[in-house]
């Protein structure tokens, strides 16, 4: 299969690519059509998913997820792994990583990083992403009709490289007062993420992929990223490809966001653009995010906020976390449950208009979750008592 693929690509991509074709061929080969993951742990018809509560609003929102799943009789059991952000040893996060390797799928809250700690204390979330090689972060920003925003009808998919770039954690102080931080861009990872973006665009029937970069200044680094995107684009002639510089992109996003369809970019620009888009559709409480690797998938809120200031006050918006759990159910191929819960969430948001404080309403978190459970119950399937 790889031999035929490489042969097929050689005339398209040109002789001189050689090595690229093999790498590209390998990347495509291991994920032809829908990505194939080893089957997640499944005993007696039930799936086991790792749950990492995290800090801030994470624990309370994930409790609501568990409550909702129990109520709707979703065949998912959660293996809870706590990660203490204050401890300096990496045992906690390593346990969590081991649990995810075991189960294949995880749902997590954000683990806070205290940035006054010394540099050898790495961000726990970052460690998780790089150890499990969750190379693609996917975020689908859609305007919800029930939410008041300045821009309407936004529908943008953002794909962000999740493991390298500026987040490589390679810094050194050569001389006191002079610090260098390395941003690493590799051909393999750039090809991989570009391929993921184009395949997703094709699967979802999207028509254009825009690469976001700063190659006019970082000629080698972002230049390599852009070149890889162009190479992959040539293999998808049905999808239009263009590129835009990151500062222009943010300017266009706040004035004309409807020109964007699917966007692919390296790590840091992904951070900026995904937060801008989340703000455009209504805030951090509404958008779910997914981190996909070859073998594992971890679901969380898209903007990864800890929400310390609103923790334990019953005012956090559960929508993002609940929609993330629906993405997880889709990943586990439990589509009926996913659609049922998603439908109930959207009905609460758009028809009942029960909103939490962050989107201008006055509901509490528990009221929103109760409303969702009532809608599910009235929908018909057998549920437990409210």
């Amino acid at each position, binding site marked *: 299969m790889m031999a035929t693929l490489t042969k097929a690509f050689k005339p398209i991509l040109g002789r001189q690519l050689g*090595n690229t074709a093999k790498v590209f061929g390998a990347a495509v080969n291991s994920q032809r059509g829908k990505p194939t993951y080893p089957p997640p742990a499944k005993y007696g018809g039930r799936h086991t998913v790792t749950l990492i509560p995290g800090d801030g609003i994470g624990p309370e929102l994930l409790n609501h997820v568990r409550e909702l799943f129990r109520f709707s009789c979703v065949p998912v059991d959660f293996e809870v792994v706590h990660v203490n952000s204050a401890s300096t040893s990496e045992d906690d996060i390593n346990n969590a990583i081991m649990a995810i390797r075991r189960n294949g799928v995880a749902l997590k809250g954000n683990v806070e*990083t205290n*940035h006054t*700690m*010394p*540099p050898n*204390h790495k*961000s726990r979330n*970052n460690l998780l992403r790089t150890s499990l090689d969750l190379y693609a972060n996917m975020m689908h920003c859609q305007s919800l009709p029930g939410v008041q925003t*300045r*821009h309407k009808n936004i529908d943008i998919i953002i794909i962000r490289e999740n493991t390298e770039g*500026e*987040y490589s*954690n390679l*810094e050194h*102080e050569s001389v*006191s*007062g*002079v*610090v*260098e*931080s*390395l*941003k*690493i*861009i*590799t*051909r*393999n990872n750039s090809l991989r993420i570009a391929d993921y973006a184009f395949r997703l665009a094709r699967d979802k029937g999207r028509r254009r992929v825009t690469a976001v970069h*700063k190659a006019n*200044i*970082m*000629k*080698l*680094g972002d230049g*390599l990223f852009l070149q890889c995107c162009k190479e992959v684009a040539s293999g998808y002639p049905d999808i239009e490809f263009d590129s835009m510089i*990151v*500062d*222009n992109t*943010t*300017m*266009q*996003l*706040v*004035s004309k966001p409807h020109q964007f369809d699917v966007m692919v970019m390296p790590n*840091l*620009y992904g*951070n*900026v653009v*995904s*937060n*801008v888009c*989340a*703000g*455009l559709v209504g*805030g*951090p409480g509404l958008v779910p995010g997914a981190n996909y690797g070859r073998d594992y998938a971890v679901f969380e809120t898209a*903007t*990864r*906020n800890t929400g310390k200031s609103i923790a334990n006050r019953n005012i956090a918006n559960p929508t993002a976390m609940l929609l993330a759990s629906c993405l997880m159910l889709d990943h586990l191929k439990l589509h009926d449950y996913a659609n049922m819960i998603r439908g109930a969430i959207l009905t609460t948001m758009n028809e009942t208009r029960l909103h939490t404080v962050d989107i201008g309403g006055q509901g509490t978190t528990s009221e929103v979750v109760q409303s969702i459970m009532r809608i599910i119950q009235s929908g018909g399937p057998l549920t437990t008592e409210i």
Partner: protein
Amino acid sequence: MKAVCGPVWFIYNVQFGSFVNLVFCALFGQIKTVTLIPGDGIGPEISTAVMKIFEAAKAPIQWEERNVTAIKGPGGRWMIPPEAKESMDKNKIGLKGPLKTPIAAGHPSMNLLLRKTFDLYANVRPCVSIEGYKTPYTDVDLVTIRENTEGEYSGIEHLIVDGVVQSIKLITGEASRRIAEYAFEYARNNQRASVTAVHKANIMRMSDGLFLRKCREVAENYKDVKFTEMYLDTVCLNMVQDPSQFDVLVMPNLYGDILSDLCAGLIGGLGVTPSGNIGANGVAIFESVHGTAPDIAGKDLANPTALLLSAVMMLRHMGLHGYANKIETACFDTIREKKVLTKDLGGNSKCSEFTADICRRVQDMD
């Protein structure tokens, strides 16, 4: 009079009356000479517009026009022409129009060359919503101060092995301290209540950590200004939802580039955004950050607002607040009235009509 003293400058478009006025000011030492770099494309016409408006406002400014196209100096290094450098060093203040960066000219970007020549370490962009030019965001009033010399734009990149590239982001304590000091000075001089440092120290612990530490140290000396720190992603998220919560933002190069353009987008784009670059030794160059627009060059269709607002920023920097307020109010009034707007602002008037309207308003204010 200065006219007999130096062969280097000349007065542009001056009528007899204001010539006498200038003479008076020169005699009493109040007139200030500013280096003007018209630039390319629409540069010359918008520079002329600004000069006309300043003349109508009777601002005590004398313009010294210079060209900054790079020439090859001794030793093969590209540099700006010596007359331009000499003029800037003497006057310390400059106003620059858009410069075209030719692709195959062999010399580096002119903006980069200017930055290096005068060590322009701070890029300041005040973003204020313009009444009359409607955008979805109506309550923006913030200033972005960006470190302009190092950070992610140091240009230090290596190909390690085939397929692996590293870009180096350089943060030094000295540059961070300098930009933080400028930010707090600016806040104090312009009655701004708070300064927010934007960073990503959770991920880039050492580099942004150093930047933050220096900001904190400088904040100790400016207790009258409130200092806060915020992650870059949180700033982006909150900026598009509620920009009114931000005041002065200080940050390293890349974040500054992205955020300053984001804020420009909030108020209507680069065609209405002023910008200033502050250098060491008191040098300051104010510029319009839009492009040269070669398609409308010479057709009297250009919008001089960006260059005009940058010139107003320049007046404030020089302490001439009265003239600055007068010209700015006239400009905003013209835009608010919506009678003589240029094409990019939604009207179909010419640049000269727009300029004339502002001149009339300025004269009426006296």
